[in-house]
């Protein structure tokens, strides 16, 4: 967080020795305690009231910068070395430590609050006392407080409903089912107390969707999977009670294992800052050495002659030793060149920028009441440097609201030819579904021939919809008679089941062993024998059912290529027709699935089922063995047809993409869809245009677009460079058919080879790896749960907000942070190096120029707030123009505003300023006396004069650096100056001197120095000489090499003037045009032509001219 060098001290990292397999015996604490499993006592808070101070301080001093200042403090306590009082370091240090400690404490407190609700009482036992192996009872609407194996529940078949919003953010109800043997235990406490099954399962891990274990009970083996687990953090719903056995407790629960981000992201500015701070250290040591050598020489040549006056200890009489001590003394007084408050200030700025993102109403999506959220507060300025955007398609570019729009059944297509997905389907009237009392009223379909076919009871059409009604994992919820609501994990499934419902195949109820449909009004119950579930590798899902007639059927739906590979050879002709239809659908940007079925042989199925049961109880390689078995049965399928689902584009996507493209951001779309679907989306998002050539493999033409059928082997080492080179020649890259892992690999590839800032945006669980890999991860809080959002750094509800996040917030953040850093380094160099120059005049004795109180307060009081205000509020160009001129984003990508060169420029400016600040007052004071003849060239008056000049110069400089003077800026800048003078006079006052004479020896100096005209003449001259060269350089730069920003701001002025001129008569517009001249826009001979144009024309003309 604060300081990248911070050593991570994580209590959780001291996990117990690697556990390979977990053995848990129910109701047997003695047995379970042998393994020292974690108990349920969770202390998420790092600190308690008493340990906070020592632990927090210990952690803070592990940060390099803080430790450095501690060492300085110790050095200052050695009288021979101490060139500054201890308070000059301790005041800022304490301030920094306090701010950090408060932040840590609030973080910790908030974390603590979050976890409080887990502590519930159950049967006189606190949750925290629950141990592994205990049998516990859970009640409706209770949070589950440990990872529990479901044993029995109040619902039939041992079912139990849970909500997992706390775990993955998904709000749809999920169902869990107990083993039949254990669900018989019911609520019989005696039986439950006698339950002595032993569970052997995987060790604790963080996979929320996976569990492998086996229950050994009464000499039988039962396989356990995730469907039988209730994880900590879930909430029990629609279930009166249930009993469960604790498998993982406390820190070993899956929720806690998922806590905390594994990867700590840092921005490039962070890394640069660390390098620079090291350089400054080097510079500091060099200065120390130079001055120490100077001291040695001076002591030998001059200093020894002063021994009569300065009878120092024998110890110090050696010039070399004196030089050595001087080195440390100078390290102390020059330490302000390494700004102690830098890291804290940067954190404060980033926090401010994050709040602005959270507060932005233009990134608030009212339909879902979702504001944008900066979940990470440390990456803001990197948002202004993005070069590559990796975007998911579904749910990110599109709405992920799926609508069943077309299908192909047995070689016939149904559904209106919509041509373009952007056009509504208003041409033909909607199909009337009134024949079906259970229909979903929101469903629309525009081809009545399909309904005709249904009504004619064509067997294949019926089978098609029967498949859709049977083969899925949707949960029905019937709130009142006939009012069905489907809880679907993926919107595709929901759309397909809803379509089947409206076409007369209503999915009505599900038990673990049956599925009940209303087929054209008649209830039909199918026995559900097996679910061959979907995953990203299989890309298909099947169910095996027995219909009321006793026939065994396998229904399968999946990606076309996968299904086509497993078809009966007799289907070949149909397959070609369907394949043509599929291409047609995909060409319209629709998402397609192929459907197939198979009649199963009773004997073969029995045998297969036995193998399946055996495999599902396996502890090792269970996945692989199941996969192989599924593969075995999903062969020789009969093709039924295909479905096409429409996913509408989100609002503003094409505009956003074209705007980001203008900002020179390369957008790569990574999608699991088919090539044609992806291309179509590409066209509709303005990413692809007809005048662009498409490139499939190795054509190296310029201005081309790559659509790469990305295969896994393309990511192998030898090909990746070629792929990258080709891809980067292209304006747009669309990668289709990529798996989540490949998405992350693509991001990694670009990150590694291009040294560019990458941003990944997605909405689903499949984008999580990509979001975590990219420099910046953005999550869209959409239809597919919260996993992407939880893994992301920024989240909002609509893709189009990305434009605002990058071009407005990102650009401002980067601009502000860079200006802030430049000024910060400048200020500290100007402030500190004055001591260096003074060294040459004071015998390198490490005498400070300023008053010690000034040194203490300069960074934290006199100059901190104006630069913070600039860093928080500054706007070089306002938001409308940031969006109107996307090329203003370019400097961030090229890293122009803060880099090593910039750093040298601003430190050089600091060095020059310190030189002027020292030598002009030196020259003036060398022979100066006051106007009443008494002397003024004493050290204290000199100190006050330089300090005042310094404060004025850096205030003027921050005024120059501030582009956007809000009331806050005014208040802070003028306020800082006022506070400086107030504190100066207070510290030089008689009153404070009478109380602490030796702490405030500057009594009267401010009065006596600042009432001298000569002192003000010195301050004026110093300020002018320090500031005017900067103004001149900036003016020359805008004149000779204007940056994008300069050009834009000139354009903005012109636009304003033109708007202004419209409101005036012709007589006045001549004046306006004259004033246009001051922007150097037009030569006089052109002005006449301009005059003849009307004002609209002027703007057009100017735009062309510019």
């Amino acid at each position, binding site marked *: 967080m604060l300081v990248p060098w911070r050593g991570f001290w994580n209590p959780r990292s001291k996990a117990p020795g690697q556990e390979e397999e977990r053995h848990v015996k129910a109701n047997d604490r003695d047995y379970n305690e042998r393994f020292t499993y974690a108990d349920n006592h969770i202390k998420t808070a790092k600190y308690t009231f008493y340990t906070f101070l020592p632990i927090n301080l210990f952690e803070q001093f592990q940060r390099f910068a803080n430790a450095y200042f501690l060492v300085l403090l110790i050095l200052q306590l050695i009288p021979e070395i101490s060139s500054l009082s201890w308070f000059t370091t301790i005041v800022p240090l304490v301030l920094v430590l306090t701010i950090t400690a408060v932040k840590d404490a609030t973080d910790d407190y908030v974390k603590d609050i979050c976890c409080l609700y887990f502590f519930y009482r159950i049967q006189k036992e606190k949750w925290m006392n629950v141990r592994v192996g205990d049998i516990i009872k859970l009640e409706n609407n209770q949070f589950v407080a440990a990872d529990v194996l479901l044993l029995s529940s109040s619902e039939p078949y041992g079912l139990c409903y849970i909500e997992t919003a706390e775990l993955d953010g998904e709000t749809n109800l999920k169902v869990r089912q107990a083993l039949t043997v254990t669900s018989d235990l019911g609520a019989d406490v005696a039986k439950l107390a006698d339950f002595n099954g032993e569970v052997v399962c995987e060790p604790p891990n963080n996979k929320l969707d996976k569990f492998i274990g086996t229950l050994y009970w009464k000499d039988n083996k039962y396989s356990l999977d995730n469907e039988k687990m209730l994880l900590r953090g879930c909430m029990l719903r629609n279930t009166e009670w249930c009993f469960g056995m604790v498998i993982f407790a406390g820190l070993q629960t899956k929720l806690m294992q998922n806590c905390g981000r594994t990867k700590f992201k840092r921005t490039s500015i962070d890394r640069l800052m660390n390098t620079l701070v090291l350089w400054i250290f080097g510079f500091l040591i060099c200065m120390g050495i130079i001055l120490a050598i100077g001291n040695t020489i001076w002591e030998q040549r001059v200093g020894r002659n002063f021994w009569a006056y300065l009878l120092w200890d024998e110890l110090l009489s050696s010039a070399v030793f004196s030089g050595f001590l001087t080195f440390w003394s100078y390290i102390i007084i020059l330490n302000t060149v390494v700004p102690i408050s830098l890291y804290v200030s940067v954190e404060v700025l980033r926090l401010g920028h994050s709040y602005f993102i959270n507060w932005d109403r233009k990134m608030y999506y009212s339909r879902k*009441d979702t504001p944008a959220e900066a979940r990470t507060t440390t990456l803001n300025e990197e948002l202004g440097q993005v070069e590559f955007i990796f975007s998911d398609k579904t749910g990110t570019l599109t709405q992920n609201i799926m609508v069943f729009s077309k299908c192909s059944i047995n070689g016939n297509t149904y559904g209106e030819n919509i041509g373009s997905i952007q056009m509504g389907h208003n041409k033909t009237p909607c199909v009337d579904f009134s024949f079906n009392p259970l229909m979903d009223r929101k469903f629309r379909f525009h081809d009545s021939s399909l309904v005709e076919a249904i009504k004619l009871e064509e067997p294949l059409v019926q089978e098609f919809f029967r498949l859709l009604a049977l083969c899925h994992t949707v949960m029905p919820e019937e709130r009142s008679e006939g009012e069905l609501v489907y809880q679907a994990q993926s919107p595709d499934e929901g759309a397909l089941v809803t379509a089947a419902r409206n076409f007369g195949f209503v999915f009505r109820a599900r038990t673990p062993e049956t599925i009940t449909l209303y087929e054209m009004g008649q209830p039909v119950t199918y026995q559900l024998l097996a679910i061959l579930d979907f995953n990203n590798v299989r890309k298909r899902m099947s169910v095996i059912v027995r219909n009321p007639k006793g026939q065994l059927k396998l229904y399968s739906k999946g990606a076309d290529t996968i299904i086509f590979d497993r078809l009966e050879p007799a289907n070949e002709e149909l397959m070609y027709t369907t394949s043509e239809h599929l291409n047609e659908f995909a060409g319209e940007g629709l998402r397609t699935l192929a459907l197939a079925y198979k009649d199963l042989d009773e004997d073969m199925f029995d045998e297969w089922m036995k193998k399946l049961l055996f495999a599902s109880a396996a502890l090792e390689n269970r996945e692989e063995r199941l996969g192989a078995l599924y593969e075995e049965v999903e062969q020789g399928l009969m093709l039924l047809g295909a479905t096409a689902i429409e996913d509408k584009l989100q609002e503003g996507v094409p505009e956003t993409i074209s705007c980001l493209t203008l900002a020179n951001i390369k957008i790569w779309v990574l999608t699991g869809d088919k090539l044609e679907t992806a291309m179509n989306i590409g066209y509709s998002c303005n990413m692809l245009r007809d005048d662009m050539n498409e490139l499939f493999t190795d054509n190296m033409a310029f201005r081309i677009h790559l659509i790469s059928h990305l295969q896994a082997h393309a990511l192998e080492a030898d090909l990746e460079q070629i792929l990258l080179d080709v891809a980067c020649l292209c304006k747009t890259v669309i990668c289709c058919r990529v798996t989540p892992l490949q998405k992350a690999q693509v991001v990694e590839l670009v990150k590694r080879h291009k040294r560019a800032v990458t941003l990944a945006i997605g909405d689903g669980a499949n984008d999580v790896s990509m979001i975590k890999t990219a420099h910046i991860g953005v999550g869209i809080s959409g239809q597919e749960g919260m996993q992407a959002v939880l893994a992301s750094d920024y989240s909002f509800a609509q893709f189009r907000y990305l434009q605002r996040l990058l071009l407005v917030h990102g650009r401002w953040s980067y601009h502000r942070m860079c200006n802030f850093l430049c000024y910060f380094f400048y200020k500290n160099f100007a402030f500190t190096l004055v001591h260096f120059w003074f060294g040459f005049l004071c015998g390198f004795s490490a005498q400070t120029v300023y008053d010690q109180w000034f040194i203490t307060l300069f960074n934290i009081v006199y100059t901190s707030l104006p630069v913070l205000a600039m860093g928080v509020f500054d706007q070089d160009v306002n938001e409308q123009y940031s969006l109107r001129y996307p090329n203003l984003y370019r400097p961030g990508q090229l890293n122009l505003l803060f880099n090593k060169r910039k750093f040298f420029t601003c430190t050089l400016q600091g060095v020059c300023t310190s030189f002027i600040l020292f030598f002009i007052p030196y020259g003036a004071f060398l022979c100066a006396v006051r106007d009443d003849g008494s002397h003024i060239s004493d050290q204290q008056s000199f100190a006050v004069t330089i300090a005042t000049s310094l404060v004025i110069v850096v205030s003027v400089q921050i005024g120059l650096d501030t582009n956007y003077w809000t009331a806050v800026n005014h208040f802070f800048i003028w306020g800082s100056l006022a506070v400086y003078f107030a504190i100066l006079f207070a510290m030089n006052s008689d009153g404070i001197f009478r109380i602490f004479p030796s702490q405030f020896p500057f009594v009267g100096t401010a009065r006596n120095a600042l009432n001298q005209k000569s002192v003000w003449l010195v301050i004026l001259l110093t300020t002018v000489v320090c500031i005017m060269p900067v103004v001149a350089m900036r*003016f020359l730069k805008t004149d000779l090499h204007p940056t994008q920003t300069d050009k834009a701001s000139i354009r903005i002025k012109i636009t304003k003037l033109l708007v202004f001129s419209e409101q005036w008569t012709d007589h006045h517009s001549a004046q306006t045009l004259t004033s246009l001249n001051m922007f150097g826009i037009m030569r006089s001979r052109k002005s006449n032509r301009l005059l003849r144009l009307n004002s609209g024309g002027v703007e057009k003309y100017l735009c062309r001219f510019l």
Partner: protein
Amino acid sequence: MGKVRADAGPFARRPDNSAFKQQRLPAWSPSLTPYTVLPVFYFLALVCVLLGVWLLITVQNTHQLKIDYTDAGACATCAEMRNDPTKAKMNCDCVINFNVPKTFQGDVFIYYGLINFHQNLRRYIKSRDDDQLVGRKNSLKSPSSYCEPFAYDENAVPIAPCGAVANSMFNDSFTLTYHPPAGAAVNVPLYRKGITWYTDKNVKFRNPSTNTTLQQAFQGTAQPPFWQKPVYELDLDHPNNNGFINDDLIVWMREAAFPNFKKLYGILNRAHTTFSYGLPEGNYSIAINYNFPVQYFQGRKEVVLSTVSWFGGQNHFLPIAYLVSGGLIFIVAIVLTAVYVKVGRSGKNMEE
């Protein structure tokens, strides 16, 4: 951040539409346009040059005379005596003659100057006790450790005033005599009081409070080792100019910032008719009680006579610095104008 608020409603989480949160605070956006920058440059150039000229004229009307007496004329013997450890304690006086070519009109100030004396060394500057100098009884008897090794004498008696600064106090004294072309020599009368800052004399330096004599107040303290007289006998002519509030001590204790400095010694008393207009031109002599040794550190000593103007003494640096800065700013202004006319105005720079 992002916490669900208590007031649930359709727009419960909608951010406030305040100018602050939406970053729409009214603001002033200045920018460096030719119409602002160029006039500022010309104006500043003018101001600097005018100020420079004015200062220069003022400085030309002030007078300053420096007399280096380190080993000049009769003082050479004294310098040798100070060099010789055996004769270090012996008194030595010398007289130096000089000529004032032009009348010093107005108030005339007499300074002593030291060259190459480092009053700005860190350990030297620190070697004092402000608590003691403000008259605190505790500090009088137990000086701060910063004063070491000048905190206690060899008999462990506390030194007042302690520390290296006080110990090394300048102790030459001057008597200035005017030799008019006709008539007897006139002693030039000097104010030896009122040469300090008011705050120093009245706030920063106080004698220890006492009902009896100053001598008793300082009882139990020793004089600094290099001093010839105790602190309560610094000015025998003016009884109330003794102790810590002695003007010479206060002037010395305000450490100079640079190794070459001058400190006020006295102000011409213009009550005397001869000097009512200032210091008339003619021949003068200065009698020096030569005590302060500078040979050890290759230092020089000088007496400076000077008049002052509204911005202080004769100071050529400021007028010249102003003139040079004004000139440079003017040149830069012309360059900027040229660049603007050549490049900026024509709009060439705006082409992409």
